[in-house]
C-alpha cells in the first residue's frame, strides 16, 4: 500500500500543476478539427488545393443547370408545360413565379460567386514554376465562371448585388452591396475578364466521364457575349455601337480561330431524293461529354444522386412535364429542305430535319402526341457549342453593319472560297476586310458550311433561303437577317436555355420590347394580356430576394 501511495503522489502533484496553471487563452480555445479545412488554413498555393477548389466550383455550377435551362426556355416561345407539369413549372411558364419559388432563389448563383471570390482572393497566382505561372489558367477559368454567373443573374433578375470580396462571416453577408443593372454589370465584367482572355483553360484530363476541357467556359466566347450585351443595352450612337458589335464579333472570331471550331459534318440529312431515309450526326451531340468537335462548354451532371448532383430534366422528359410549342413545330415544318440531285438540279421538300433531333412525338398512353423535348434526355447541359457560337458571331456581325457576311454564316459558312465569292459574301461589306472576317481565310475552315445546312440540306443551293430583294436598305437587310438568325437560334438551339435571353437581346438591339412580347404572347392563349405584360421590360425579370 505504501509503495502504491508513493507512486501516485507524483501524479497528484502533476494534477495540481495542471489545474492551477492556466495557459489562457486565444490559442487555448482555438481548436482545429481534422474534419474540415478552415477558411484561413487554405491559401490555394499548391496544385492540389487549386484543383480541388476549382472542382468545388464546378460542383456549385452543376446546381445552376436546371435553373439555367428552365428559366431560359420555359419563359420563351419554344417550350411549354403540359398538364402533367408541376405547378412551379406552370408558374414559370405563365410569368407568375413568386419570390418564394425555387426559380427565384438566387442562393445557388451566389454559391458559385462566393466560392469564386474566395478562390480569386486566395489563389497565389504569383507562384512560378520554371518560368510558368501554373495557376493563372485557373484564375482565368474561375473569373469566367464568376462572370457567367453574374451575367445569368442580371439577365434573369434585371439587377444584381455585386461583390468581389468573399463573404466569410455572417456580418459580411448582411452588408449592402452595390446593385448593378445590365449595362453596369457588363462593363464591370468586361474590365475584369479581358485581361484573362489570353489564358488558355486548365485541363485536368477526363473527370469521371467528361473531358475536363468542356467543363470550363471559353473566356473569349463569354467576352463576345458580354460585348454583344453591352452593345445591345448601350444608348450610344450607331457608330460607337457598331464598334462594340465589332468587338463582340472579334472575340467570337478569336474563339473560333483559336480552337479551330469548324462547322462541318454535324447535321441531319436525307440520304435520298425521295426523302425516305436520313442520317443524323447532329442529335448525338447532346449526350456527349468527350470527343466532340461541337461542344465548347457543358455542365456534366451525375446520372444519380449517389454519384453527384443530378438534373431533373430527364425526369421531366420521361414524365412529359414539358413539350415543344406549336410555334416551334410550325417553324421546323415550314423550312425548305434542299437535296441536290445534280450540280444544277435540286429537289425540295419542307421540314427542317433538326426537328427529329429536338422533338419526339412517338409516345403512347397518357403522353401520346406530346412533342417531347428530346434534348432533355441527357445528364448533360450544353452551355456553349459551335453552332450557337457561329450564330452569335452572325448576330454581332449583322449588327456591325454586315448583314451579307452574317447571312453567309447561315447559308454558306465562312471560308476562303466563300469570302472570295461575292455572291456568297458581298464584297462591299468586306472592303476593307475586318480581322474578324479575314481569319476565316484559313485552310482549317475549308470544309465549313452554313449553319442552316445542319437541318435543311444544302442551303447554299436553297434559292428560297436568301436575303430578299425587297430589302432595299442596309437597315432592312439587318432586320431581315436578324429575324432569320432568331429563327435559326430556334431551329438550332431550341430548349438549350438561351431562348428568352436571345429574344431579350434582339429586342434590345432594336430597342423594341414588343419584339419579345409578340413572339412569346403568340404562344399563349391569352395573347393580348401577354403582349401588354411583356411589352413592359420590368416584367421580363423574375422576382428575387437578393
Amino acid at each position, binding site marked *: 500500500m505504501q509503495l502504491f501511495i508513493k507512486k501516485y503522489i507524483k501524479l497528484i502533484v502533476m494534477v495540481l500543476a495542471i489545474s492551477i496553471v492556466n495557459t489562457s487563452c486565444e490559442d487555448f480555445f482555438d481548436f482545429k478539427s*481534422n474534419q474540415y479545412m478552415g*477558411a484561413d488554413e487554405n491559401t490555394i498555393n499548391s496544385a492540389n488545393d487549386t484543383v480541388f477548389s476549382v472542382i468545388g466550383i464546378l460542383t456549385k455550377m452543376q446546381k445552376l443547370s436546371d435553373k439555367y435551362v428552365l428559366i431560359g426556355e420555359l419563359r420563351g416561345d419554344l417550350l411549354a408545360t403540359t398538364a402533367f407539369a*408541376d*405547378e412551379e413549372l406552370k408558374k414559370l411558364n405563365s410569368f407568375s413565379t413568386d419570390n418564394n419559388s425555387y426559380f427565384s432563389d438566387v442562393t445557388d448563383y451566389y*454559391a458559385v460567386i462566393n466560392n469564386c471570390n474566395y478562390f480569386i482572393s486566395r489563389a497565389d497566382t504569383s507562384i512560378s514554376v520554371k518560368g510558368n505561372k501554373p495557376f493563372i489558367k485557373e484564375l482565368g477559368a474561375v473569373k469566367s465562371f464568376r462572370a457567367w454567373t453574374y451575367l445569368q443573374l442580371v439577365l434573369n433578375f434585371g439587377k444584381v448585388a455585386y461583390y468581389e470580396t468573399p463573404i466569410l*462571416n455572417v456580418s459580411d453577408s*448582411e452588408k449592402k452591396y452595390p446593385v448593378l443593372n445590365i449595362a453596369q454589370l457588363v462593363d464591370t465584367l468586361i474590365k475584369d475578364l479581358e485581361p484573362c482572355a489570353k489564358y488558355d483553360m486548365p485541363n485536368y484530363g477526363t473527370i469521371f466521364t467528361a473531358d475536363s476541357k468542356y467543363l470550363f467556359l471559353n473566356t473569349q466566347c463569354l467576352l463576345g457575349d458580354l460585348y454583344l450585351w453591352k452593345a445591345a443595352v448601350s444608348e450610344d450612337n450607331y457608330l460607337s455601337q457598331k464598334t462594340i458589335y465589332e468587338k463582340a464579333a472579334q472575340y467570337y472570331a478569336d474563339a473560333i480561330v483559336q480552337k479551330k471550331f469548324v462547322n462541318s459534318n454535324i447535321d441531319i440529312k436525307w440520304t435520298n431524293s425521295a426523302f425516305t431515309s436520313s442520317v443524323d450526326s447532329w442529335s448525338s451531340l447532346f449526350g456527349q461529354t468527350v470527343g466532340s468537335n461541337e461542344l465548347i462548354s457543358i455542365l456534366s451532371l451525375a446520372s*444519380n*444522386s449517389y454519384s453527384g448532383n443530378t438534373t431533373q430534366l430527364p425526369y421531366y422528359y420521361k414524365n412529359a412535364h414539358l413539350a415543344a410549342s406549336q410555334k416551334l413545330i410550325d417553324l421546323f415544318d415550314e423550312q425548305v429542305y434542299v437535296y441536290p440531285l445534280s450540280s444544277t438540279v435540286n429537289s425540295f421538300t419542307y421540314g427542317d430535319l433538326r426537328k427529329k433531333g429536338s422533338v419526339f412525338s412517338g409516345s403512347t398512353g397518357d403522353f401520346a402526341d406530346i412533342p417531347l423535348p428530346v434534348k432533355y434526355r441527357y445528364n448533360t447541359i450544353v452551355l456553349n457549342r459551335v453552332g450557337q457560337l457561329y450564330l452569335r458571331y452572325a448576330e454581332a456581325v449583322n449588327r456591325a453593319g454586315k448583314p451579307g457576311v452574317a447571312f453567309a454564316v447561315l447559308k454558306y459558312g465562312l471560308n476562303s472560297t466563300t469570302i472570295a465569292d461575292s455572291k456568297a459574301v458581298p464584297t462591299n461589306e468586306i472592303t476593307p476586310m475586318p480581322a474578324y472576317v479575314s481569319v476565316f481565310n484559313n485552310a482549317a475552315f475549308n470544309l465549313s458550311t452554313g449553319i442552316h445546312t445542319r437541318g435543311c440540306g444544302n442551303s447554299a443551293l436553297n434559292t428560297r433561303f436568301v436575303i430578299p430583294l425587297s430589302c432595299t436598305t442596309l437597315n432592312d437587310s439587318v432586320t431581315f437577317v436578324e429575324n432569320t438568325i432568331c429563327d435559326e437560334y430556334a431551329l438550332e438551339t431550341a430548349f438549350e436555355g438561351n431562348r428568352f435571353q436571345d429574344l431579350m437581346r434582339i429586342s434590345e438591339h432594336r430597342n423594341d420590347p414588343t419584339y419579345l412580347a409578340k413572339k412569346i404572347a403568340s404562344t399563349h392563349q391569352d395573347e393580348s394580356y401577354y403582349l401588354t405584360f411583356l411589352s413592359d421590360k420590368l416584367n421580363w425579370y423574375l422576382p428575387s430576394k437578393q
Partner: protein
Amino acid sequence: MKMDKKIFNELRRLLAFIAFTLLIMQVNAQVSDTLTGVVKDITTKRIIVGAKVYTTDNSSVAMTNDSGAFSLKLSSFKRSIVVVAPGYNMREVYVRKGLKNISVNIYPDTYSNFYTKSLVLQESTDKTTQINNTNSSVLDNRNSITVENEIQKNPSANIRVIQHSGVQGTGATMFIRGYNSLNTNAQPLILVDGVVYDNLNNWNSLFNGNLLNGLNCIDVNDIESINIIKDGVSIYGSKAGNGIIELRTKRGKDMVTRITASTMVGYNSEPQFMPMMNADQYKIYLSDLLDNNTNNNQVTNQYFLNDDPQFLYYKQYHNTTNWKNLVYRNSMTQSYHVSANGGDEIALYNLSMGFTNAQSTINENDMTRLNARFNSNVSLSDKLSTKFDISYTQVTRKLQNEGIAELKDNNVIDAPGYLSLIKAPFLSPYQYSNDGNQSAKLENYDFIGIANPLAIQQYGVGNEIQSVFNLTVQPEYKFSKSLTLNSQFSYNFTSLSENSFRPMYGVAPYINSYTGIISLNQVKTQFVNQINMLSDTRLNWHKTYQKHNVNILAGIRFIQSGIKAEYASGHNTGSDEVKEMSSGLSFKSVGGIDDSYRDLNYYAQGSYSFQRKYLIDVAMAFESNSRFGSQAKDGVSLFGVRWAAFPSINGAWVLSSEDFLKSLDFINYLKLRVGYGMSGNDGIESTTSRTYLNVIKYYSNAVGLQINNIANPEIQWETVTKRNIGIDADLFDSKLSIGLDLYNNTTDNLIVLKSLKQVSGLINYYSNDGKLENKGVEFNFNSKLITLPTFQVEAGASIAFNSNKILSLPDGDYTTSVFDGEVLTAINQPIGQFYGYQTRGVFATAEAASAANLSYRTSTGLLIPFTAGDVIFSDNYPDGVIDEKDKTVIGNSQPDFYGNISLSTRYKQLKLDVLFNYVYGNEIYNYLRSQLESGSSYYNQTSAMLNRWRSEGQTTEMPKSTFSDPKGNNRFSDRWIEDGSYIRLKNIQLSYELPVNSTYIQGFTVWAAVSNLITFTKYLGVDPEFSGSNNILYQGIDSGILPQSRSFNVGLKINL
C-alpha cells in the same frame, strides 16, 4: 449581462430585507447551555446506543451512551443539532431556547429522508436550494438494471423521465422543469462523482429507433445516491441550464469489512399489440385494394386468390401465421453483483463487480454488461488525503431496427417488429417442399416485397459494444480546520462500436432510381471514441464566528472533450455469409467526425448564514468555451476570448428556528427558499463560429472543396435564468413532510437556425435569438402514517405542473415536419404542438360529399372533389379547398401535469413498496396506427379497418381504402392524435429480510417485484410511455418502437 430589471429589483429588496433582519436581531452575549437528551427509534421506541449527535458546525460532538443518552454544549446561536446513526436517517433538530432536555426520534433508513445531503454545493443542510435525493438504502434490492429507471422511481415529481422504449438498456429522455431549449440539447447534465458524464445524447445509433445511452454503463448496485438539482446550479455555468442529475457511487464506509452479494432473475412478458386482421380478413382487404388500383401488377394473378387445395402453391398461401409470436418473445433478465467494502486506517475502499444480462422482448435483442469499480479513500497524513477511483464497464448489445423509419424513401422496411405487424398472415415463415411439407428453411421475401422478419433476425447482424473506462484522482489537503484544497482529475474514455447487416435472403432488393442505388444487402458500421478530461480544483474556506457561519468556495474547472467517429456503409457483399465492410462493396458511403472542445470555468460561491436561520448563497461562474464565438454577444472580453458570467443568489429563511413559531410545536422544520440564478446551455455546434471548406463529391470519385459554412463569431450560449420560490416543511415529529416550489425559468438567446441572405450563397446559420419560458409548480408530500414496531406505513404523492411557452422567435412561427406530420413552433404557444387537419368523420354518401363541396389540389394544381368514403376534413379556412390553410393545432406532446404516488409498508421483516407514475393532458401522435389504418398499402392492417367505408350509405369513422391514398385521407390529422394520459403501477415490490443470526451472514434479503403491472390509459397503442428521440420536437410520436412490457423479478442479497 442582460439581467431582468424587475428581478434585479426583487433581489435587491430581498437583500435589504435580510440585512434589516440581521440588524434588528439583538446580538446577545454568548450563553452556553448544556442539552441532554436521548435518541430513540421511532418505530420501536427503543433507545439507540452509539448515535452521533453534533451541532451543525461540528463544534460540539457527543455519542449516545448505553442508555441512549447524550449531553451536548449548545450556545445561544448554535441550536441546531444533527443526529446520525447507522441504519437510520439523518435528522436535524432545532433546540429552542430554554429547552434543556430533548428526546429525538429517528427513523430507520428504510423511510425516505427529508434531511438530505449533497456534495455538489456544500456538505451541509444549510441549503438554499432544494435537492431531492434517493439513497442506496432505497436503491438496493431493486429490479432496475439501469439508473434512469431508478430516477423515474423517485416519488418526488422533480424530473420527468420517459423511457425510450422497451429495448433493454436504451435509456430515457429526461426533462427537469420542462423544455429549456428549442434546438439544442434539453437533457440534464449528468455528474458521476462530480465528473461530467457524457450520456451520448449527441450521437446517433446505426439502428433505427435505438438511442445511445451512456448511463447503461453504470450498475445500479454501485450507486450510493441520486440527486436531482433543479436550481442553484450557476457554478456549472453553461452546462447546467437543463438541471443536474448527480450520481454518487459507493465508497468505503469504515474499517469493518463487508461483503455483499446480490442476484436477480427476471422474466419480461411479450408485449400485446393492437389486434391485426387475420388471414381471411386481410385477403378481402387486399382484393379491395386491387379494385381501385390501376397499377397493381404486383398483386394481380397472385396465388393467394386461388382457393383450390390441389393448387401447387395452395399451402404456401393458405396459412394462419401469427408473425408477432414468432418475432416477439417472453424474455429473461439476470444480474449478479458482488462488492467488498472495508479498509484500514490508511485506506478505505469499495470494490465491486457485476454482471448483467437482460433480454428484450423481441428476438435477437439483449444487453450484457460486465462492470468493475474500485473506489478508495486514502489518508496520506492528517492533512493530505485522496480519493482514487477506477472503473471499467463493457456493455454488449444485440440490436435491430425498431419501428418505422422516418425517411422511408431511403430505407427498406427491415425492422422485424414492424414487419411482424404488416406481414401477410396467410404466408408461412418457412418454405414448403414440393411434397407439401413445411421445411426448416425460411421463406424469402414475399410477393409484395415485404421481408421475412425471421430471416432478418436469423441472417442479419446488429451489434453494439460500448465501454467506459474512468480514472479519477481526487487529492485533498487540509491547511487548517477551516481551509481545504481539493482537486479532482478525471480521465474518461468511452468507446462505442456498432455494426449492422441487412441480409439479402428474406429481404427484397432495394432499388432507387434517383440515387442509383441497387441494394441486395447492406453493411453499416461505426466507431466512436471519446476522451473527456476534467480537472476541478477548489479551495474551501469555512468559518463560524459566533452567530455567523461563512463558507467560501473558489475553484477552477477545466474540461477537455474530444470525439472522433467514423462511419461507413456499403451494399452488396455478394453473399449473406459476408457481413462486414470491405472495399469491394458498391455504393459505399463514409463519414467522420472530429470534434473537440475545451471549457474553462472559474467559479466562486459564498454562503453565509446567521444563526442558521437566515441563509444566503451568492455564486458566480466565469466561463469560456471553445464553442463560444470570438465576439459572443453577451460575453466579456478578457485574454482575447469571450467569457460568460453566470451569477446566482439564493436565500432561505428557516422559520422553524424562530421563536415566534415556538407555540407551533408540530413544526419540526420549516424553510422558505427564494432563488434567482443564471446558467447556460453550450450545445453549440463547434463549427458554428468557423468559416470552413468541406470536401464534396463532384462526380463519382472526383472531389472538390467548397465553402460550407461561414462563421457567426457572435454565437454564444443559451442563457437560462431560473427563479424559484419554495417551502420545505417537516411536521409532526417528521411524520409529514411537504415540499412546494414555484418557478419561472426563461431561456434567452436560444440557438436558432436563421436564414442567411441569399448573396452569401449559403442557406442558413446558427444564431442566438428568441426566448422561451417554463413556469410551474411542484408539490410533494410524504407521510409516515404508521410507525409501529412491527408495522410501518409510509405514503407519498407528488404533482408537477409545467407550462411552457415560446416568447419570441427571430423569423416568426414555423412548423417542422416529423414522421409525415408537423410540429408547430409559434410565439406564445408551447413547444411540441401537433399541427394538422381536423376531421369530422367520413362521407357516408355521395350526396353528403357533393353537398359539402370540398376538394383538394394536386401537385399539378388540379382541384379534385372529395367523394363518399373520404374523410371529412374541416375547412377551417372556408374556401372549399382542403389545403395548408386549414391546418390548426390538434394536440400537444407536453402534459398538463405529472407525478407519482408511492406507498411503502413494512410488517416485521416483510416490506411492500408500491409506486405509481402518472401523466395527464398530453397528446400522442400514433404514427404506427396511421400506417396500420391507412388502407392505402398492401400492409396488413389493424382489425379496426374491418369497419372501413365500403358501400354507399355506410356510416363509419374509417374511410375507404384506396391504394396509395391519392386524396390524402390519411394525411396528418386528428385521426392519429390520441390522449396520452396514463396512470401506471410502475413498480410493486415485496421483500423479506430473513432473521439471520450467524457470525458469517449479516443479512439475507429476498424480494420479488413486478414492473408495469397495470396501466390505465385511453391510448390505443401498446404503451403510452415512449420517447423515440431526445429531440423535443419528436416527443409524443409513436413510431412503433418496442414497447415496455411487464417484468417479474426475484432477487436475493446476502451480506457477509
